[in-house]
């Protein structure tokens, strides 16, 4: 095979993966998309690694091993083809070129002086992880950032366009397109996503895949492997005429055409160089078969890692959990319903996430669940979980509630932060318990019937009991699963008269009575 074809294959594969994952993140799914997207999901490095720590004995958790193997064989094909953020960067690079003068479109080889930063960040990311915080991973992991960008930046635009189209079609009496629910995204989370996207975009336009070779922990980790990979790109001394074309198209800036050196730790195997060379001056060399001496900064690498270890240890110790918000104690005002402050000190985690510790320790904050949730009850948090759970999703019952029969988030989660639940298990998975605020309820204060909470309750943990000729809510906590339907439906303002207090460790609720069918009605006449 011609090596110049490799670039075309790389582009095809990367676009395929990018498109399927983007569709999945935009919650466009179906019988064809789902299994393919799921397979591509399993190949994402850190999600797979996290998944391995949750569900060890499963083929679906071994994606990271496949990636490591691929990297060991052919270099960082992960970065050029599998990583959706890599493809996004390629798109930005391509778009950015249009706005640059011709001469500045070229890439230039840069020596790898920034190794300290690169490996310190990797070490810090891993250290944070070991000490139980995914803060750095969630901020730096490329898959996670692709998800954040898709769900918090692309999805809202997509949804707005969709709903405008719905509106337009409706004026022609066409109802073929369904409106999408407005996603309620916190402004701070959107701002962080925009910041991340901005940084990545600027780095891409400025220096190609700079992000992948400086900030990205996956890039750094795979770089350690690819610098020793079996097959690697090398110059053919006899064919190369020093034209420098390959260097100009190398977006990793790892090709030194003057000295005919390839920095394999930074090479992302995009194969642009093969395509650019008219003389076949580059080839895939077998490192073991070749007698060539490998030029890798092995010793310096070790030193750097040692140094960064201590540097980052200090940083790791700084990552103490942020103080939890303390509810201000003030005398309750009961002149109108909904004036008694509520609010839980801990956010509610999705069903299947076992406990706060499990969830915050495994969630990579990719927001796949946020995008997939049909009721939009899963929203990104900011510092609700403290620093260690930075930006991880939570259930927000102000705008929606968790659908009783739905287990979608448990199906899509790539890391195992939300473990797969079947419907029956979900029905008794108690993520929190609703608390009724007697002194804030419409029935007790306004003396009118309401019952919106009980109406929406799927397990009838909230029932209505007689109260001065009216009906008053009453809670049976053991039946409650914390779905938040009551909290959502409660009409009091500004505070709800019923709200869910999170379970730090999810519990089991009492299952509903058996479905033994309708009773017969003996009378065969009308009561009027």
């Amino acid at each position, binding site marked *: 095979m011609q090596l110049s074809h490799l670039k075309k294959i790389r582009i095809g594969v990367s676009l395929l993966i990018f498109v399927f994952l983007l569709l999945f993140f935009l919650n466009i799914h179906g019988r064809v998309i789902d299994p393919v997207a799921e397979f591509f999901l399993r190949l994402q490095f850190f999600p797979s690694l996290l998944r391995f720590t949750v569900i060890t004995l499963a083929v679906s958790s071994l994606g990271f091993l496949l990636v490591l193997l691929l990297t060991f064989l052919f270099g960082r094909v992960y970065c050029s083809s599998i990583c959706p953020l890599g493809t996004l960067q390629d798109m930005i690079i391509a778009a950015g070129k249009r706005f640059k003068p011709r001469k500045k479109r070229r890439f230039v080889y840069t020596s790898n002086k920034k190794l300290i930063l690169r490996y310190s960040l990797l070490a810090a990311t891993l250290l944070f992880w070991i000490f139980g915080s995914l803060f750095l991973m969630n901020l730096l992991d490329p898959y996670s950032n692709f998800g954040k960008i898709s769900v918090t930046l692309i999805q809202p635009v997509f949804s707005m366009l969709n709903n405008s189209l719905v509106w337009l079609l*409706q004026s022609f009496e066409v109802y073929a397109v369904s409106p999408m629910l407005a996603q309620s995204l916190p402004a701070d989370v959107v701002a962080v996503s925009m910041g991340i996207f901005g940084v990545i975009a600027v780095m891409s336009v400025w220096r190609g895949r700079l992000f992948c070779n400086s900030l990205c922990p996956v890039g750094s980790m795979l770089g350690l492997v690819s610098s020793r990979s079996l097959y690697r790109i090398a110059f053919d001394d006899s064919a190369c005429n020093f034209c420098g074309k390959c260097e100009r198209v190398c977006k990793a800036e790892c090709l030194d055409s003057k000295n005919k050196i390839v920095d394999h730790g930074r090479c992302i195997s995009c194969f642009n160089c093969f395509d650019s060379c008219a003389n076949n001056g580059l080839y895939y060399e077998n490192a073991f078969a070749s007698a060539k001496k490998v030029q890798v900064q092995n010793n310096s690498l070790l030193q750097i890692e040692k140094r960064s270890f201590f540097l980052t240890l200090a940083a790791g110790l700084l990552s103490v959990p942020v103080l939890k918000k303390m509810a201000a104690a003030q005398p309750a005002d009961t002149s109108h319903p909904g004036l008694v402050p509520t609010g839980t000190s801990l956010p509610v985690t999705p069903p299947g996430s076992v406990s706060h510790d499990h969830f915050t320790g495994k969630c990579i904050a990719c927001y796949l669940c946020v995008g997939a949730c049909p009721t939009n009850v899963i929203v990104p948090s900011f510092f609700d979980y403290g620093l260690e759970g930075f930006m991880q999703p939570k259930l927000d019952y102000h705008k929606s509630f968790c*659908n009783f*029969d*739905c287990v979608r988030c448990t199906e899509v989660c790539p890391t195992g932060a939300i473990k797969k639940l079947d419907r029956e298990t979900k029905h008794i998975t108690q993520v929190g318990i609703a608390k009724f605020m007697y002194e804030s309820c419409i029935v007790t204060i306004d003396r009118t019937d309401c019952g*919106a909470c*009980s109406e929406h309750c799927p397990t009838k943990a909230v*029932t209505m009991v007689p109260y001065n000729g009216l009906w008053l809510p009453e809670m049976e906590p053991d039946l409650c699963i914390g779905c938040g339907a009551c909290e959502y439906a409660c009409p009091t303002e500004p505070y709800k008269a019923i709200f869910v207090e999170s379970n730090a460790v999810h519990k089991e609720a009492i299952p509903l009575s058996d479905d033994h069918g309708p*009773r017969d009605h003996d009378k*065969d006449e009308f009561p009027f």
Partner: protein
Amino acid sequence: MYRRDFLKKSFLYGAAAGLGASALGPLTPALAGLRPHIIKGNYDLVAVRGDDLVAMFERAMQEMGGMSQWVKPGQTVVVKPNIGWDVIPDRAANTNPDLIGAIVRHCLQAGASRVTVFDHTCDNWQRSYENSGIEQAARDAGARIVPGNFERNYRDVSIPGAVRLKEAKVHEQILDNDVFINVPVLKHHSSTNVTIAMKNLMGIVWDRRYWHRNDLHQCIADFCLFRKPDLNIVDAMLVMTQNGPRGTSTADLVRKNSLLISSDIVAADAASTLIFGEQPANIGHLAIAERMNIGSLDLSRMNIQRVFM
């Protein structure tokens, strides 16, 4: 042509109702004069007992004089079932889908130019439309399904004479169609004890929380001052007598095997309440409705046809 002027429409509604009433004069029973508003059909109320809901509906329509009493050729119809919950038909938390299908077919046979089905659901709307079976049944029968969760489809209206609900955002399908058929399912309700035809109208407004916050029963009654359905068809086959309105299992249901049809929303609710096993006067919004002269709870003064199949 789609966003028609609402005032013009309400004028046309009034004129059509008036003309319809005078045309039907000879058919309507002598008691008509006692009723607070115009009733179409041969009876004030038709109640059917049987085992086959669709056959019962067909028999009830036959007794009433057919769907053409309400739907004239070329008119557009909106059918409003209860699709509140993401549950399967066996749970009877939503209107029976076969009944909706049959109603749509009757409307089209009567010459309706278009039949639209929607509800502002409580659970996720797409899941509720699908799992209730109503989306499929309505489509199969030839209706179109439109979403009820899209705020842009709601328009502000004012309700003259209302005590608490003086304004509401109402779905444009209610405002823009000629005929409005209300198809509730009889159920226990945690807030209002029962939910039938009047309570079902909460599914055509955008902000339900306002009702809950401002004397729910009064708001339910107030809304009837704005727009009463032309026809109410109450599904009382499987009646949820506890844990309503969502229910927790089929064990919440009792086979009451009944179907009621009436142009009078209050009469339909009064009769259904009795089937449920409650006294109409004990239901807050029904008592208010009688007090506000929206309708009468006194079934003994009505011309009722009872059918046993």
